[in-house]
């Protein structure tokens, strides 16, 4: 799981162009949206695409993303339980 968390941090920084943030600065329980990393609604859509493309997970209801994308911990737990690739 810790490998996956590291991988997610790297992917988020790269795919969401978080140039000023390093992997070490993202704690596993940091909120990804709002006061945490400050991601926005377009970032949320990119994360949904990333789940599909990289882990074979299709979110039927984008509202599900709110809980899944709370933090690296919640993302990693969801991916571990639902990944198809």
């Amino acid at each position, binding site marked *: 799981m810790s490998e996956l968390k590291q991988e997610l941090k790297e992917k988020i920084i790269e795919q969401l162009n978080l140039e000023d943030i390093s992997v070490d600065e993202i704690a596993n329980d940091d909120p990804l949206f709002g006061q945490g990393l*400050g991601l926005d609604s377009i970032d949320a859509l990119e994360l949904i*695409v990333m789940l599909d493309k990289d882990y074979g997970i299709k979110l039927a209801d984008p509202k599900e993303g709110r809980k899944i994308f709370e933090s690296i911990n919640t993302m990693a737990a969801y991916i571990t339980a639902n990944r198809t690739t």
Partner: protein
Amino acid sequence: MKPSSFHIASYCRIIDNNIVKNDEVLFTEKTGDLSSFLKKAYKHMEIRYPKFFKMDTLSKLAFIAAETLLKDSVEKNTALVFSNKSSSLDTDRKHSASITDSVHPYASPAIFVYTLPNICLGEISIRHSLYSENSFFIFDEFNPRLLTDYCDSLLSTGKTEKILCGWVDVDKQEYDAFLYLIARTGVYPYTTDELTRLYRKT
């Protein structure tokens, strides 16, 4: 107020890895591609605005040019009137490549949202909290006469008292930005001849 009583308060030209403001070179970077140049310019100008890195190249170029002219003070009713030749073609190509990718044909939301040229006006408006008039025209080349006609209409009808106007074009590694701020006071006369002179000069 009559448009003839307005001036060009300042101008910015970004071309050939140089950023010029009012005849003065503010930043030069001779190596690297356009993306690298804009990133270095952002750091050189000590801007703190993480959303810059999420923008497409056209918006980044427009953002840096606007920042050069608006960072010290900006009136909230500053209209934006931009133009270019390539529209959002540079980003349209990236979107096209992403949806026709042979392995992962996905539409990237972060790319798709920039597939209109006027999105760069929105980025500048958000950055400077502008709720003003804005327009984006597509011309074959920088056309000071048409831009001046449109700006004169905004000024003479009292829609705005300041206008950030000009040309911002990106196509692959080719780029050219020339923005000027029209205001009541300024160092350059606000005429099409002067605009042509300033554009050709740099």
